[in-house]
């Protein structure tokens, strides 16, 4: 009924009401409308998968069969054979009206299950309601048999066996960190320079591998010596890379064959027949060869992403589509005029939809931390070329326009702003934000290029190629810069730092001694003693997580193995090493800092009320915290009113800077497997909700159960009382190059205030202030409380309302009530 009424309303009327999601439906092509509505959402809704979404059992069965058959093979080869078996035998499909193909499952409603990742995830899957394909009993039996076969054999099982037992227990407690230290759930950058800029198709890469094999075999058949001994293993790795590339070409050809079969035997519409033939020709050309058209370019990219994901789940999607697909877009649309701009928009929109539909089974903590999505697909747009000139082009604009039409929460965009971005591009960026997409986030390109050089020593030209490795952290797309494995387990629940400093390292929520004993806080004589305890807890927490992650990375070639990823990395193809090996990588690690700002706010409140004003004793405070402020609401409000971050108040801002600089110092004392640094990156995804029942009461005034602050260096919701400029000024005191890797800032703006040309000018002025203060990131929600409350009441009518959660966007109706309320609580800034 609601939809029927909306069809009658004009676009003009809907614009006045700012109901952008209905406008999108009217404006997009019939094809895009069909494909958008065709998607089975894989993001969990408040933590649960949508009805009808099922886990794919075909792939784990195929994988296990072949993996067990080749049990004497080394890891890369064994995995290549098993994955090749999947690609040759899995069910594939072509959706009606699609021009791009490739999916991580055997039917559109399936979730990928990476069975070799972690036994604890496999056990969770068995117990997950609603995801077993029919008939359920048969599926449960299959899952039980598979789990039994893999028990103790998964990558995480193997890491856990050699990790220090104390580290393992504390990591697995779920109190201090997040994630699993394996490629199976990590995310890899793609060597786009090798694949796209150098125009290498898979046959070109196979040729290079053959040359490398020939050279190595000459040596292994030559004079014996220690230098030839490593080559034996590398020869097997090259074999594995070649095998999986050949299987990938066959996989693409299966789509081509299916498209031809449909065209010749089933399809009666002549236009669709032609499209299917073109689709077949596309899949016969890529990925075997470098692309010749926009459709081939996008299809090649999508095949690489799907194939990498069938190999390992991949929790993010580093990409720079407007940069790497520009040559083929320009050729097709501008030079040879093979397709119209509208036809290009259709392809671009579908390319986004293909990414949106990708999903794998995730454990419950991941679903709670990434509500509404299956991973952070943050695509990087804009920025500069390697020579520093503006890289924005018409494809940048096309992506921004397509985003407003298809309204997917994932991929989400991040725009690399720099001073020379043209006004018309900035307007397109603003339109996306005004349409309530919550993206693009805005990144300060000059600052982040400097940052990449400062922390990891990336040369300038390489730093300029950067993409978002996950939500926030830049990473080059080059031979020595590209990062093959970023495990989310270097993700710290930072609020525990101040919590443990207060309670002598004891965690009252999980009821165990977690951190070191840094002293009875009731006996601290001054703030400096308390701060010193905080520093020790910070060092302990970061050390524990980084040790785990380093070990997982170091052992990954042995415990997991990535033949496909290696085959697409120039340095791996040259060296014969697994791409995940630290050899040849410069290093690009960072510690994601969830729940960061609570530290500064809590430390400031203690300094003010306990040590400076002496209104309360530490013993009184500790008692209040341990009883969750029960019956002490007036005391709790006193602590809330203490100086808070985001108000341009040096009292607390100085403490924030001290905390950041202590971590920055320590970041240079700890090293990644490549020997490089581990800087901090404060941001949250929806970890602030996931950890709300894990972090205890704190001196900033929170209780156990309250949502933590929403992200990065964003002030607590409602605690920024002095307006948006004060927020920017607080954030501007941070050195966004030297104090950490990057710093997420959420801002909520009024859709009413930012309407029309005046709204654009206001926003542009805000961005100028943001840039002048040297901040590296900002992202916006522009949707009214009224709309969000209405969406809570009638979610069916608001399916395409999107909000910016933290480092990602989600459909508002897919996130839990608590997360929804937390977003509504965020202050709407009048600028």
């Amino acid at each position, binding site marked *: 009924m609601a939809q029927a009424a909306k069809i009658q309303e004009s676009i003009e009327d809907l614009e006045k009401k700012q109901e952008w999601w209905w406008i999108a439906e009217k404006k997009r092509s019939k094809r895009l409308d069909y494909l958008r509505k065709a998607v089975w959402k894989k993001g969990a809704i408040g933590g649960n998968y949508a009805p009808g979404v099922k886990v794919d059992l075909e792939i784990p069965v195929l994988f296990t069969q072949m993996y067990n058959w080749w049990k004497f093979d080394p890891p890369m080869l064994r995995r290549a054979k098993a994955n090749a078996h999947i690609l040759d035998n899995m069910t594939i499909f072509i959706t009606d009206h699609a021009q791009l193909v490739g999916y991580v499952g055997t039917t559109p409603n399936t979730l990928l299950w990476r069975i070799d990742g972690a036994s604890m995830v496999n056990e969770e899957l068995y117990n997950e309601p609603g995801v077993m394909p029919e008939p359920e009993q048969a599926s449960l039996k299959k899952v039980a048999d598979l789990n039994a076969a893999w028990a103790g054999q998964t990558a995480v099982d193997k890491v856990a066996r050699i990790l220090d037992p104390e580290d393992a227990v504390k990591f697995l407690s779920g109190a201090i960190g997040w994630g699993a230290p394996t490629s199976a759930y990590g995310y890899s950058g793609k060597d786009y320079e090798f694949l796209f800029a150098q125009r290498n198709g898979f046959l070109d890469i196979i040729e290079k591998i053959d040359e490398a094999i020939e050279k190595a075999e000459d040596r292994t058949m030559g004079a014996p010596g220690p230098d030839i001994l490593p080559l034996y293993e590398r020869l097997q790795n090259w074999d594995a890379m070649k095998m999986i590339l050949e299987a990938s070409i066959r996989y693409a050809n299966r789509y081509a064959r299916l498209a031809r079969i449909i065209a010749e035997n089933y399809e009666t519409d002549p236009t669709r027949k032609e499209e299917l033939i073109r689709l077949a020709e596309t899949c016969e050309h890529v990925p075997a060869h470098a692309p010749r058209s926009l459709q081939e370019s996008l299809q090649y990219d999508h095949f690489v992403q799907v194939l990498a994901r069938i190999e390992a789940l991949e929790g993010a999607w580093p990409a720079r589509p407007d940069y790497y697909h520009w040559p083929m877009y320009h050729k097709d649309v501008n030079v040879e005029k093979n397709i119209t701009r509208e036809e290009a928009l259709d392809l671009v929109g579908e390319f986004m939809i293909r990414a949106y539909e990708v999903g794998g089974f995730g454990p419950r903590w991941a679903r709670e931390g990434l509500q509404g999505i299956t991973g952070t697909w943050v695509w990087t747009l804009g920025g500069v070329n390697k020579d520093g000139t503006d890289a924005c082009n018409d494809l940048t604009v096309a992506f921004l326009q397509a985003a407003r039409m298809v309204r997917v929460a994932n991929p989400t965009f991040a725009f690399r702003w720099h001073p020379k971005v043209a006004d018309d591009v900035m307007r397109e960026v603003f339109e996306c934000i005004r349409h309530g997409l919550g993206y693009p986030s805005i990144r300060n390109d000059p600052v982040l290029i400097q940052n990449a050089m400062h922390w990891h020593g990336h040369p300038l030209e390489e730093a300029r190629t950067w993409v978002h490795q996950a939500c926030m952290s830049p990473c080059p797309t080059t031979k020595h810069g590209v990062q093959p494995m970023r495990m989310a387990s270097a993700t710290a629940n930072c609020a525990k730092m101040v919590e443990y400093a207060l309670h002598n390292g004891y965690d009252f929520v999980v009821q165990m001694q977690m951190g070191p004993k840094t002293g009875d806080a009731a006996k601290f004589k001054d703030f400096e003693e308390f701060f010193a305890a905080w520093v020790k807890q910070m060092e302990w927490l970061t050390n524990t997580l980084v040790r785990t992650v380093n070990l997982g990375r170091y052992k990954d070639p042995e415990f997991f193995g990535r033949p496909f990823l290696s085959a697409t990395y120039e340095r791996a193809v040259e060296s014969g090493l697994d791409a995940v090996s630290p050899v040849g990588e410069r290093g690009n690690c960072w510690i994601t800092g969830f729940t960061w700002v609570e530290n500064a706010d809590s430390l400031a409140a203690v300094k003010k009320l306990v040590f400076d004003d002496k209104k309360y004793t530490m013993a009184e405070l500790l008692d209040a915290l341990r009883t969750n402020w029960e019956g002490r609401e007036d005391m709790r409000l006193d602590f809330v009113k203490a100086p808070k971050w985001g108000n341009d108040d040096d009292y607390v801002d100085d403490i924030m800077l001290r905390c950041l600089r202590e971590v920055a110092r320590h970041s240079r004392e700890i090293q990644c497997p490549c020997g490089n640094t581990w800087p901090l990156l404060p941001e949250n995804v929806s970890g602030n909700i996931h950890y709300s029942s894990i972090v205890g009461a704190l001196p900033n005034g929170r209780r156990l*159960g309250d949502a933590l602050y929403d992200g990065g260096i964003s002030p607590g919701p409602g605690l920024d009382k002095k307006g948006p400029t004060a927020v920017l000024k607080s954030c501007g005191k941070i050195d966004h190059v030297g104090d950490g890797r990057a710093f997420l800032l959420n801002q909520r703006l*009024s859709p009413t205030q930012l*309407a*029309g040309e005046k709204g654009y000018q206001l926003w542009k002025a805000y961005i100028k202030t943001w840039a002048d203060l040297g901040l590296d990131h900002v992202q916006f929600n522009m949707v009214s409380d009224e709309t969000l409350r209405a969406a809570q009441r009638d979610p069916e009518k608001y399916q395409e309302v999107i909000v910016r959660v933290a480092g990602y966007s989600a459909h508002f109706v897919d996130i839990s009530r608590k997360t929804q309320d937390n977003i509504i609580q965020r*202050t*709407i800034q009048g600028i």
Partner: protein
Amino acid sequence: MKCTECSFEAPVAKFRYLYNARIDASIALRQCPQCQAWLAVDELSGSVKQKVGPGEAPWGKSAGIEGLAEDAR
């Protein structure tokens, strides 16, 4: 404190604490252990203000410019 839905009466601490409406206000959500209703509770006075359903809230603050911003068209 007395539940407005089922009249269950007990000390405030017996009503399960869910989460706060805003950290800087004394309104929080608690759940009645008897009828499971979500209640908005004034933590200072220890009394129920109202039952809370989806889309309802006694809170939700902006910088005060909603409806007051000049129409830019």
